């Protein structure tokens, strides 16, 4: 009888074992939620792991508020962020939307205008005066501050001091000059060294944008939507300058980013007029250390133009979804009021912020040997404050698409006024 029970036990045991083997499914599922309905976790979208994603991670470390929530940083390509925001916001859903999103300044206004209720105003959260003035114009809408300015797109002229010297110029000779003077120097440099002065990409009118902003002008009027092309003197001057550079044969034509970087890394060009975010790329060519200097951007030869401009740059936005208070709190206690964070950003990832109090920090005063001991960050911060504020409006890229064709017509010999009237007409038909 005892044996029988033993056997019974054995059989039961085996059955239980067999049952167990299939019992542990569906236990570890779920996990990372993309939804933002939970206020325990807020999500943030950005696109560059080496730059703005890293900045967010630093911000998480530097957070000095007393909110209790997790911040989840999600990397998405910039185009995906634009697409997801557009599709999500247009259908009025908050499902799958982040709490914090990074938006390029040129695009900010179109989002703010198209989806007015989708963003959470930060007017009462941050102090706008602490940030570079030109940033405020692009990140606010109808009197409300929506964006928290992040990186500075301050433009500068990176020059090869050795090439200049060869042509008989000093760094002073290229400081605070006009574009006309720049072209003259370029001709001499080309003559002396055989090197081109700069690179130009026919499909990217970044140079034109930087030029017109030195004079506080843009593709659209102050209202942000009316195209301001025909009769825009700054634009006319920029077009003329552009053509002059072509005519002077001082520009190397490139068609993409790698050719652009390759040109100055290999020493093919004598200067790079672009945003300060190019610094790490310039420094990649370690053998050129000490042969570079950074000077203010050339200005348009016009009344009121300054030697300061901008290219690119982005800002943080808080979406009007559950958890917006936490997201605003996170923004305030990191990028909004934490000078130490900006020191870390500069030191660790070379990200130059637009938070003015941060410029007084020690990290900004560091002398950069690559640029011959120049206090580069201090200089850039100073120029940042001088950037003329413009409203980038809704249609920067839409208008530029039209302008690219206009530029081709102009370079092919069309009358400038006609060209600009033509593009103005096209823009008005397409945009309002």
């Amino acid at each position, binding site marked *: 009888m005892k044996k029988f029970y033993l056997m019974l036990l054995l059989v039961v045991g085996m059955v239980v074992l*067999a049952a167990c083997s299939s019992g542990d499914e*569906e236990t570890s599922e779920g996990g990372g939620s993309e939804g933002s309905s939970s206020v325990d976790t807020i999500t943030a979208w950005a696109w560059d792991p080496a730059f703005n994603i890293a900045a967010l991670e630093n911000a998480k470390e530097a957070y000095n508020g007393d909110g209790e929530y997790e911040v989840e940083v999600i990397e998405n390509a910039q185009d995906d962020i634009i697409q997801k925001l557009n*599709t999500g916001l247009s*259908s009025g859903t908050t499902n799958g939307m982040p709490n914090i999103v990074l938006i390029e300044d040129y695009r900010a206004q*179109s989002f703010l205008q198209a989806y007015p209720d989708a963003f959470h105003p930060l007017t009462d959260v941050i102090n706008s005066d602490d940030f570079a003035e030109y940033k405020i114009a692009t990140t606010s809408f109808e009197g409300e501050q929506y964006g928290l300015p992040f990186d500075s797109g301050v433009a500068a002229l990176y020059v090869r001091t050795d090439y200049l010297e060869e042509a008989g110029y000093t760094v002073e000779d290229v400081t605070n000059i006009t574009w006309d003077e720049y072209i003259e120097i370029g001709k001499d440099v080309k003559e002396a060294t055989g090197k081109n002065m700069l690179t130009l990409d026919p499909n990217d009118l970044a140079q034109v944008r930087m030029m017109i902003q030195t004079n506080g002008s843009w593709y659209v009027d102050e209202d942000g939507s009316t195209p301001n092309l025909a009769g825009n003197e700054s634009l006319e001057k920029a077009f003329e300058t552009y053509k002059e550079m072509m005519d002077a044969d001082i520009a190397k034509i490139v068609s993409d980013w790698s050719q652009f970087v390759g040109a100055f890394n290999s020493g093919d060009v004598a200067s790079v007029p672009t945003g300060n975010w190019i610094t790490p790329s310039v420094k990649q060519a370690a053998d050129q250390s000490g042969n570079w200097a950074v000077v203010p951007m050339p200005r348009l030869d016009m009344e009121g133009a300054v030697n300061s401009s901008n290219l690119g740059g982005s800002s943080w936005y808080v979406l009007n979804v559950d958890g917006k208070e936490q997201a605003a709190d996170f923004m305030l206690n990191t990028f909004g009021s934490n000078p130490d964070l900006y020191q870390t950003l500069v030191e660790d990832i070379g990200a130059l912020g637009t938070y003015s109090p941060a410029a007084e920090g020690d990290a900004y005063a560091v002398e950069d040997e690559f640029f011959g001991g120049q206090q580069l960050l201090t200089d850039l911060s100073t120029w940042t404050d001088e950037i003329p504020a413009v409203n980038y409006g809704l249609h920067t890229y839409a208008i530029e698409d039209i302008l690219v064709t206009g530029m081709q017509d102009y370079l092919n010999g069309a009358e400038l006024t006609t060209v600009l009237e033509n593009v103005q007409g096209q823009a008005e038909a*397409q945009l309002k």
Partner: protein
Amino acid sequence: MKMKKKAFLVLRNNSLFVKMFLIMVLSIVAVSLLITFSSIRMSSNLFMETFSISNTKALEQIEIQFEDYSFAVVSAMNQVQNNGTIKRVLTQTDATTIETFRSYHDISEQIERIYPTVESYDANMIVLGNNERLYNVNYSNWPVSWEVLRNHPITEYTINRPNTLLYQYLPSTSFTDEPMIVATKALMERSTGEIYGVLYFPIREAQLKQFYEGYTSMETEVLLVDETGRIVSSNKEEMIGDEAIDVMALAKEVEDEELEFKDVHVFGKDYMLMSQYLPTYNMYLVNLVDKNAVLDNLVNTKEILLISLGIVLLAVIVVFIISRRMTNSISRLVKQISAMAKHDFNMPVAETGGYEAKKIANAFNSMLSELQEYVDLVVQAQQKQRSAELMALQHQINPHFIYNTLASIKFMIQQGKKENATDMIHALISLLQNALSNVDQTITVEQEIKDLKNYVLINQSRYGEGIKVNFFISPDCLDCQLPKLILQPFIENAFFHAFNEKKEGFVQILVSQKGENLLCEIADNGDGMEMKGDYTKEDIKEKRHLFSGIGIRNVHERIQMLYGEEYGVEITSNKGEGTKVKVELPLQKTDTLVKPNKITSFQE
């Protein structure tokens, strides 16, 4: 009843086999059942899990397709919303013919510039203005008039939600033969809040289906269910437009609880349901996998069951044969051993069967033979002892006899019966001579009779002539051999016990051949006695005045010991009629003296 008993007996005899076999069969069946079921379960679970993973990936791909389309719609929508020309034309009132003509041209130009954004999806684009203006890019895809469209429920619905891009289902009966999904957006002037038009992106359901059709099969179905639970798109055409609120609820549950999948029972079948919420469409993309159909392709349960049944049968047969063989030899052994008593423990068991059984039988047999040897030794020793005892007894002449006889002789001499005394002394001498002589075991009949006669003489001299003794000896027996003093105890018995009541009588002694045997009979007509049983027992009391140590009881024993069991003493007696003693011995002539059996060889 008998059958039952027989069955029980068979069962008991084979209990070892039955137990072993039952346990093994139970184990085999249990193990194979468990293995079969758990492996079927495990493999189907594993398969379903991987299936669900790949289907979830497929769903994600489908979702990307939907989002791409959605993005195209949004881009086109943004362009239309930002388009000054479109706004101008749609808000234009009281225009002259020329102005209207230009407007139509301008707006067509703009719309045709924007349309390619969605054209690759084969979606149509319709712009509806309040001022009876309608621009339908691809007229074949929803040919609708301004009045119908303006008063259409989807237009009403859109105007009530001006800030949202809506995806609405249009059943096939309304306008065309094919059901459509229409993305709609009200065109609103932001500053005033005035709605100046409505934008439509109708796409045929068949076109939408292409987003996911590549991921469907016989077993997997994809449904697009809107928030009201209506199936707006499916790879099963007959389902389109149906209400499936339960599916919607389940999809919502899966999505809300972030499950990988859920086992559900809908449309009368068991499905594995996976779902993906499409936030921009406000619809659920549902993937239904027909579990049974999928598993039928994977696991042929019937085949596996048959195979394991076959294995079980095979194993049971093998187990039957092996355990039968093993237990059989053991049970045979057991049977033989139990029957051992019937054969006086001298029948060896058969050494057959398996190795173990053979060994056991072998050990048992050698034990048995050893035992037998010992038993033989003991028996022999006992017989030797007994024989020695008898021998000793034979050589013992009772001193009383001699004393009494001598006393009698003394009286005779005193009475002056010289003759008689001399005879008696002669008789005594001859008797003693024969009795005590150690030369031979056996003597001739003649000698024995002589001794008996001497003995009778002595007794008659002592006790008188009341008892007559007659000798009838067959002459051919005279030279036959017989053990010494074998008949004397019977005569002595007759003298001393047969005539206690009757004072006179006679004793007859007959010796003759009977076949191969020598038959000696001692018969008296004395008192006789009640034969109670075996004469060898206490029936005949030994008295002290014995001539030699050998009593009647010993005679039988001695004969049997000397010649075997077929010989011996037989006594018949009746009260008052006398006693008759028959002694049967083998016929042994002096010259053809047969060597007595081996026991005699121990005599020296």
